[in-house]
């Protein structure tokens, strides 16, 4: 029980379960509140990180985004509160449940504002606020080609990027004169517009909406602007601002602002001492805070007050920094001042402006588009003396030695100062950003302060930890050296002598890969089998329903008609879904574990080998047709690609390895996006290294030019072996190369500056000489084959939970329903 304002508080009821509500409950529990907490959430799922909402469309699951929930709290989902009975201190839900409270907290957030334009209810009109909204948008986008976002603010651009990501030609309609009018001025808006248009989005500024036009089927067909122009679109997303959800407060007779918002004092209390309001529904000194940072602070203040404390909320920082559509945009402090200094580079699309006091000494605020460095380095100086002349600061990003004052706020989402971060580092012996996050919460929300946290860590003189995991204090490269120098061939010996505990899903696969790179027989031999990730363990890739995919190697992408027919027959006979991959080969999906050996028996008999699609190993060497057929080709690209793929097949490495060979500079095989890519020249081959597609694309760097085939192969041998020895866990060659530096790697490999090239050569020779097909070996080993069953007590029984349906004449998994296990 807790005394607050002389009243005993044993029942707290919270309405709404968004980020603010989550933080409030967590704070109450952390601070030792021992009464009953009941939370009502209207959405069908527990509170999730709304700031990261868009990542849901990029593949993060709802579970990923959901906050962990504290113990001992009753959460009622899909449960909307419709009435507050202040006299009886009870709330009532839409389905008639009544819940008494001693303290009631309204954390109802806000809802998107949908302007009252005709046609806004047509099918195909959406808002962008919840996971359900995103599901609906994704579904509708499947049938659409064009989308319009109404509103060119921060959220509007985020929504537009999402529509673009869903494959829609996307328009943005903004009433104001430029994009993001609340964060940038006209000059910044113009630069931002260039960036946005360069990405293929169409921008309409000073444009309103007259009507949403529906087709004869009642679905959205387009948007009519006041100037009479129609934008055809099948998906419309409204993002024209938010409105605080104050309807409950209004119904209960609490004071609300003229433009909405539940009025609160600096203790987050409404006019009724038993009722608090926090987050995006609250109105403090005439402002509704639409950012999580201040909302979290409100939650902390309210929790403290409920427990009898005296915390106060003060006006909060509304700085924003974001990376939208690959463009950095940031605004901090004031958006005007007596003087301003602007830096503009139209070529690289950078616009930066600082506002300063009339003596040009005190920083008042700033705007950045295209490069937000000043936000990172200068924001903590708002309201203070600048560490240099403003123009110089913009030009140089500030002197590197610039020291922040201790009370400067570094994380605005969680209101953490530099002093607090330094204290946490010193007090807990922290060595990494993850530790700072755990101890201070800084960096756990929008992430924009992470570079700053890293800087503070480095400045604190902390050597950043290289530990692989809790079991090894070594990096992968160190473990590689230990295993190779000491000749260690088992995980048990390595962890007993150089680690602690029994390992985990981080260190076991790393050690498995090291042992395989050092040539220790089949990856499923003896103890090695226990280290492998499921993909390596079943030599196949796990899929969302627990089935696996099968990828036979097709070196260089060249395949005979007979072999194609075998693949077709196997897929047909086992009912597998087939698809041509981006790696110039064929993937067969939907095999159950007990089918894998039967499928591979047929494939191996027809001359196929494992394609290692499951391993951190060589994947494919793609090719173009090259000089054999192509009228432009200058070398035999296919022949080289096949030779390289056969040479490096089965080579285990810190991450997967990809390659390609193009027959001329037209580069049809996209070699420069590969870990090692080769482009033919009149004289021989150019070798490029460190390319990457994927999450952070990088063009490969030219490593050596006009090599003969023998020189080329020797150079690649050394490059790969040096990478395998020295890279970190799951580090692609691109990142590894950037860390080592191209010049250094060239010295080591082309000039043998470390004198290790003979060693690297020998190691690769050993790999080539001892290569054996992993699937071929399994099929000869009855002991290993016994593991390929769904059930140890019923080897012939297929997993009954796996089911398929048909789409475009092929199977696809029936999605597994996920029931909520929370109560």
């Amino acid at each position, binding site marked *: 029980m807790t005394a607050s304002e002389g009243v005993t508080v044993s029942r707290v009821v919270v309405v709404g379960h968004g980020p603010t509500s989550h933080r409030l409950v967590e704070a109450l529990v952390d601070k030792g509140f021992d009464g009953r907490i009941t939370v009502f959430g209207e959405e069908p799922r527990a509170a999730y990180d709304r700031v990261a909402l868009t990542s849901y469309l990029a593949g993060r699951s709802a579970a990923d985004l959901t906050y962990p929930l504290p113990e001992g709290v009753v959460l009622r989902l899909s449960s909307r509160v419709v009435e507050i009975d202040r006299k009886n201190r009870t709330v009532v839900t839409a389905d008639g449940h009544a819940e008494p409270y001693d303290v009631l907290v309204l954390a109802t957030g806000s809802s998107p504002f949908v302007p009252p334009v005709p046609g806004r209810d047509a099918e195909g009109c959406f808002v962008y606020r919840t996971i359900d909204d995103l599901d609906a948008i994704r579904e509708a986008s499947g049938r659409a080609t064009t989308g319009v976002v109404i509103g060119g603010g921060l959220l509007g651009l985020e929504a537009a990027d999402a529509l673009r990501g869903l494959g829609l030609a996307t328009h943005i309609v903004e009433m104001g004169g430029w994009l993001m009018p609340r964060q940038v001025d006209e000059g910044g808006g113009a630069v931002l517009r260039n960036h946005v248009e360069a990405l293929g989005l169409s921008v309409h500024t000073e444009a309103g909406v007259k009507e949403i036009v529906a087709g004869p089927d009642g679905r959205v067909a387009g948007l009519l602007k006041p100037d009479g122009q129609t934008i055809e679109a099948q998906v419309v997303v409204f993002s024209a601002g938010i409105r605080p959800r104050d309807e409950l407060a209004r119904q209960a007779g609490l004071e609300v602002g003229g433009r909405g918002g539940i009025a609160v004092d600096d203790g987050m209390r409404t006019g009724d001492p038993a009722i608090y309001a926090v987050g995006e529904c609250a109105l403090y000194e005439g402002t509704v805070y639409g950012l999580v940072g201040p909302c979290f602070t409100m939650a902390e203040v309210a929790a403290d007050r409920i427990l009898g404390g005296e915390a106060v909320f003060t006006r909060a920082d509304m700085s924003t920094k974001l990376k939208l559509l690959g463009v950095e945009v940031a605004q901090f402090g004031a958006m005007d001042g007596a003087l301003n200094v602007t830096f503009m580079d139209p070529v690289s699309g950078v616009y930066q402006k600082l506002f300063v006091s009339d003596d040009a000494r005190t920083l008042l605020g700033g705007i950045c588009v295209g490069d937000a460095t000043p936000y990172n380095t200068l924001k903590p100086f708002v309201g203070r003396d600048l560490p240099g002349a403003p123009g110089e600061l913009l030009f140089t990003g500030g002197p590197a030695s610039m020291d922040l004052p201790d009370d400067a706020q570094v994380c605005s989402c969680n209101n953490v100062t530099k002093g607090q971060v330094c204290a946490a580092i010193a007090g807990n012996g922290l060595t990494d950003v993850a530790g700072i996050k755990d101890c201070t919460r800084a960096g756990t929300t929008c992430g924009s302060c992470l570079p700053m946290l890293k800087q503070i860590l480095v400045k604190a003189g902390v050597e950043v930890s290289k530990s692989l995991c809790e079991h090894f204090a070594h990096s992968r490269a160190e473990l590689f050296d230990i295993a190779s120098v000491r000749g260690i061939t088992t995980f048990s010996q390595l962890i007993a002598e150089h680690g602690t505990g029994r390992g985990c899903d981080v260190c076991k696969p790393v050690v498995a890969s090291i042992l395989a790179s050092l040539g220790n027989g089949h990856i499923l031999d003896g103890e090695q089998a226990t280290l492998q990730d499921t993909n390596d363990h079943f030599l196949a890739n796990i899929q969302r329903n627990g089935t696996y995919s099968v990828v036979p190697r097709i070196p260089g992408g060249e395949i005979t008609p007979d072999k194609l027919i075998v693949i077709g027959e196997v897929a047909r006979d086992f009912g597998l879904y087939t698809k041509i991959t981006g790696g110039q080969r064929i993937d067969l999906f939907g095999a159950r574990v007990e089918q894998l050996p039967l499928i591979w028996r047929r494939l191996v008999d027809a001359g196929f080998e494992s394609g290692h699609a499951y391993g951190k190993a060589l994947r494919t060497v793609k090719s173009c047709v090259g000089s054999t057929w192509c009228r432009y080709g200058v070398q035999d690209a296919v022949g080289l690609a096949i030779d390289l793929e056969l040479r490096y097949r089965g080579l285990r490495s810190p991450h997967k390895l990809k390659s390609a060979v193009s027959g001329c500079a037209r580069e049809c095989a996209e070699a420069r996006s590969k870990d090692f890519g080769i482009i033919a020249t009149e004289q021989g081959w150019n070798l490029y290294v460190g390319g990457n597609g994927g999450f952070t694309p990088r063009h490969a760097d030219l490593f050596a030019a006009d090599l003969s085939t023998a020189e080329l192969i020797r150079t690649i041998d050394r490059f790969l072996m040096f990478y395998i020895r020295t890279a970190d866990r799951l580090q692609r060659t691109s990142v590894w190369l950037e860390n080592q530096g191209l010049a250094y790697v060239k010295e080591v490999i082309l000039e043998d500056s470390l004198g290790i090239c003979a060693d690297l050569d020998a190691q690769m020779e050993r790999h080539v000489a001892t290569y054996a097909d992993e699937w071929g070996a399994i099929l000869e080993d009855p002991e290993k084959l016994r593991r390929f069953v769904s059930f140890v007590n019923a080897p012939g029984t297929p997993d009954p939970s796996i089911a398929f349906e048909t789409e475009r004449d092929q199977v696809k998994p029936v999605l597994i329903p996920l029931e909520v*296990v929370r109560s």
Partner: protein
Amino acid sequence: MTILREDVETTYWTPVCSYTDLLPERGACALVDDHQIALFRTFDGELFAVGNRDPFSGAQVLSRGIVGTRAGEPSVASPMHKQVFSLVTGRCMDDPAMAVPTYPIRILDGTVEVGVR
């Protein structure tokens, strides 16, 4: 949060395989009536049984995860998205709001038996 866990009564023991069918530091799955049970044998010979269903993805795959320890507690990482579960309590060590059911398990004359209601 209160987590709903399958109640287990230990009255009915079902033999599922011989002890040597289980590899040290690896899992296997047993089908007992409608229940899929993930069985694990750790390096020191101890046995654990938890539900095979990964609650994050819904797929029946936990028996195929990597076995290890976290802060000394035996654990398995889901092969789907790598969340780690305690083999002792079934609780998800990355998200305390999630858990899988645990089952009693024993060896009788070299045969592994699990207790499923």
